[in-house]
């Protein structure tokens, strides 16, 4: 679990949908100890612009091969530059960072929205013996690539889309009560937009199912040193998303 800063070599990199890319890098020092829910903090270029590292969830990890998979959407300058990386190129990678999910579950339900489905993919794979059910939501069928990515990992999907172009029309949370009533899940893991997480937290509280949420925040250091990512918790204690999280019990988050 020691964190390191190492050179990661790109071995695979491709556009998998509209503006979403999948990148596989070799970085054995980090892959050796990575757990689902953790993230890496990467430096893209040597120039001073952009300057800061960028945090990305680990969407898959193969310790034997020393590889990590990242799935990312192009949103700004850093991710735009990232798309230019070719197999053979290296980037600087700090990791594994953050706490990761608590894996003590027998009947897990994974609820993901948008890029929040990236860390859940690695989590789903961790539950191969007790396959996870996944509730996934997105804006429209152009986000259809997620079911494909999850296909090899688990069988039980429930899909929603804002415009109804794929799966149920509506938000992820709309379907959640039904699922919680139908099945006896012993834990819900959620990652996605803040509003979604807030909804999931409320519903799981109502149904009294434990819930872990993975949060995002703007990060400079990624290791608990700069305090750019702290948030209040229901216990009154201040939390750092980068080290105390990014995964928190839903009940500890002040929404």
């Amino acid at each position: 679990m020691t964190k390191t800063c190492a050179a990661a070599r790109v071995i695979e990199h491709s556009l998998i949908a509209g503006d979403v890319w999948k990148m596989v890098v070799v970085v054995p020092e980090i892959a050796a100890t990575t757990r689902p829910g953790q993230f890496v903090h990467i430096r893209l270029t040597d120039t001073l612009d952009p300057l800061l590292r960028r945090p990305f969830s680990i969407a898959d990890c193969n310790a034997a091969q020393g590889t990590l998979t990242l799935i990312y959407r192009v949103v700004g300058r850093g991710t735009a530059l990232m798309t230019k990386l070719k197999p053979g190129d290296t980037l600087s990678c700090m990791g594994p960072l953050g706490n990761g999910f608590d894996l003590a579950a027998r009947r897990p339900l994974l609820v993901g929205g948008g890029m929040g489905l990236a860390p859940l993919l690695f989590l789903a794979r961790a539950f191969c013996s007790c396959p996870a059910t996944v509730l996934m939501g997105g804006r429209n069928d152009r986000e259809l690539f997620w079911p494909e990515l999850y296909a090899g990992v688990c069988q039980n999907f429930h899909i929603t889309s804002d415009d109804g172009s794929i799966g149920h029309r509506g938000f992820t949370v709309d379907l959640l009560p039904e699922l919680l009533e139908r099945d006896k899940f012993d834990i819900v893991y959620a990652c996605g937009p803040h509003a979604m997480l807030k909804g999931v937290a409320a519903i799981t509280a109502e149904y009294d199912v434990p819930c872990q949420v993975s949060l995002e925040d703007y990060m400079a250091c990624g290791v608990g040193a700069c305090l750019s990512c702290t948030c209040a918790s229901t216990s009154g204690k201040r939390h750092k998303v980068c080290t105390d999280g990014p995964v928190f019990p839903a009940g500890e988050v002040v929404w």
Partner: protein
Amino acid sequence: MNTTESKLTVNIAGIKMKTPVMTASGTFGFGLEYSDFVDLNQIGAIVVKGTTLAPKIGNSGRRIAETPAGMMNCIGLENPGVDEFIAKTMPKLAAYQVPVIVNISGNTAEEYGELAARLEETGVAGLELNISCPNVKQGGIAFGTCPESAGEVVRQVKKKTSLPVIVKLSPNVTDIVLMAKAVEAAGADAISLINTLLGMAIDINTWRPVLGNTVGGLSGPAVKPVAVRMVWQVARAVNVPVIGMGGIMTAEDALEFILAGASTVAVGTANFVNPRVAVEVAEGIENYLTERGLQHVGELIGKVNCG
């Protein structure tokens, strides 16, 4: 002491450091956060996060924003308070040999004095008075822009402590030399600069400030030219040692500050980019000395020739 050490060893106001490269307050936590990445004992000194009497939760909303070759922050001095620092953090830091300097902030000159008093005999190597934080409403930057108030803070602290007192200046002033002379006259043992430049960014989609506190402190390579200029101006004007910082990413950057007159330097924002930067900068300085047949980093201090 081997030759490697002697080339870089410095003594600032009585604080003995293995290298002239420190970490800047607020950018290296309490040091422990980086212990997986770098041997803390190879760092000149660790200046810990700005500490106040009572715990502070800092500013709400977004706290950092990247800017061209820099970043802005409005952390707002979030910290657990001096008592928790003394009780919980300092004992862990005591396991290392690295000097620990506590960066302190108060709302009144007396609060600075009180902080200094509490930190006496706790194993810390020195105090850095943050009279220049742009991210808190009261105190902070007000002390940093008025020579009289700045002097008063220093006097209150000197009354209460036997520790070396470093005063950290704000660059957001018309005349940095005036500020430096005022704190020197009041008894400062060393002067560190620069703190962040006051900046702002606006989100053109939401028409709101990007940062939760509207304005924030600009740091990183973008500010380096301003920092080098101020270190140069101050080092020529005062007799106490100057600790230079602002945008240092490499040994070359650090050498600019030293030639400008800094006796030691601190790396800030660079830690976020390269967690080993404090050690790598020191190594780079050593190589520079070796290549030029110089015996000690002291031979470079203030040697810029503007003639």
